């Protein structure tokens, strides 16, 4: 028991910070690039704008290919790439590289479907006023898709917390690493259970905040 407390005292703060770093960086990159790609996929597949079926199926194929790789394999394959970008792949920033690569296509699909769910008629009404695409995006598409985007962001963050445990096992740190290193390899069940409880609490809080935000922006 004292051993468990000792390990947690020594390592938990650091591990939580590393997880936070990895998830934050990869979420931001995933959301930014995912939104842009999702928007492009929406724009180029919508009859009201400029359909480009060939471009769309190429991008769609790349996204599907990335997403069809199990994260464990994607992570290993990307070790050289992480080295190139972050210098040392076995750091939280190195872990964030493969997490980001997984997050972008994941969120691209979420963003695409959030935009596609916006009532076509409202988009058409926007076009009928003579508005250009960016005004329609800013004043119609974005506010109407926002609740779905927020729910998607929450889903992405929670998935990334899960994946971050996996990057932890190859040395990128984080709470996942803590659980495996001490809880599993050293039979410190107390550490394992503590990490599980902490993760459950964190995920619950994030989900709760996300639901509140999504509801706040829903008026229909």
């Amino acid at each position, binding site marked *: 028991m004292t051993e468990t407390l000792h390990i947690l005292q020594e390592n938990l703060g650091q591990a939580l910070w590393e997880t936070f770093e990895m998830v934050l960086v990869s979420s931001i990159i995933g959301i930014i690039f995912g939104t842009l790609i999702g928007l492009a996929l929406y724009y180029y597949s919508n009859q009201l704008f400029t359909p480009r079926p060939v471009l769309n199926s190429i991008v769609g194929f790349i996204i599907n290919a990335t997403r069809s790789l199990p994260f464990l394999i994607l992570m290993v394959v990307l070790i050289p790439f992480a080295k190139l970008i972050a210098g040392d792949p076995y750091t939280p920033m190195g872990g964030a590289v493969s997490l980001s690569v997984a997050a972008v296509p994941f969120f691209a699909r979420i963003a695409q479907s959030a935009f596609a769910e916006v*009532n076509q*008629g*409202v988009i*058409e*009404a*926007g*076009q*009928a*006023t*003579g*508005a*250009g695409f960016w*005004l329609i995006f800013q*004043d*119609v598409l974005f*506010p*109407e898709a*926002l*609740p779905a985007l927020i729910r998607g962001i929450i889903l992405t963050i929670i998935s990334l917390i899960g994946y971050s445990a996996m990057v932890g096992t190859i040395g990128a740190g984080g709470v996942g690493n803590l659980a495996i290193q001490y809880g599993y390899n050293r039979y410190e069940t107390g550490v394992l259970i503590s990490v599980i409880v902490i993760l459950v609490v964190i995920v619950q809080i994030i989900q709760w905040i996300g639901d509140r935000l999504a509801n706040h*922006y*829903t*008026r*229909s």
Partner: protein
Amino acid sequence: MSQIELTNVSVLFKAKNRTISAVNDVSLAIEAGEIYGIVGLSGAGKSTLVRTINGLQKPSTGLVKINGIDITSLTKQKLKQVRQKIGFIFQNFNLISNRTVGQNIAFALTAGGYPEKEQPAKINELLSLVGLADRVDNYPNQLSGGQKQRVGIARALANEPEILLCDEATSALDVATAEEIVNLLKDINKRLKITIVFITHQMEVAKKLFNRMAVMDNGVVVETGKTYEIFANPQSPMAKKLVNHVLAVAIPSEIKQQLALQATQGQILTLKYHGEDSLHPLITAIARETNVDISILQGHIEFIEARAIGILSIYITGETLAIKKAIAAFNSQVTTSAEVGE
């Protein structure tokens, strides 16, 4: 030159392995300031046709001229400018649900390049016009269907358009609310001298609102004319079908069954006459002349553009030969007289 001129407009949609002709060689001329209706059943191509007028739908062939300018060959940028002068209202209102009433209208104003500082005053003016000035901060889901459509109208009028296109604008509303919207549109047409092009399958709306109309069937305009003329004297089968439906010239089947059970067999005849014709002396005169008995089954008068159309269904009994003579007499004297199929 008419304000809106469609010349041989066709719209083809390519489906998997066939082409669907939604609009087929339509030519129409709509004058400035009139309320022009396009009626037809669902799927007749009305919505597609009306979307060619503001370029939301590009015709496969044909010309669409607004004030003499063909909009089918305009650049995207020029087309946006044209659209600012053409308002559009929809069956399902199509308001931005996560934005307030005021923000919905501000969007259209911004699209039209209206200075942001002056927008609140303009929004208030537009909402007053449609009777919703106190709802500026409400979200669409806090409004009734009729109120949503009023916001839709205010948004469509934001950039002071010359033309207002209405796509089944009353079809999602109950009868009383639809009438309110019809009256509002009439008022707007009169006050702002705006041209209204209104498509609908509701003939009740057609008879109250339109000055002139076109009847569409399967992508083709089968008949055009003044609203009164089309109601009084429809020529095409589709116009007849639509008009007869709203004028309720059909005899209830219960009555037909009862008549069929009677000992003396007779003939049902529906007479349609214009307001100027006086019918009663005609009925008694023909009855006396041809020695038949005439009973009245139903009758009513419709007013379209302040002119009356009378409908009278009668049942003629007597000798077979006398009935024939009576029918011939009616046919020769009443503007329209239709035998109702037994």
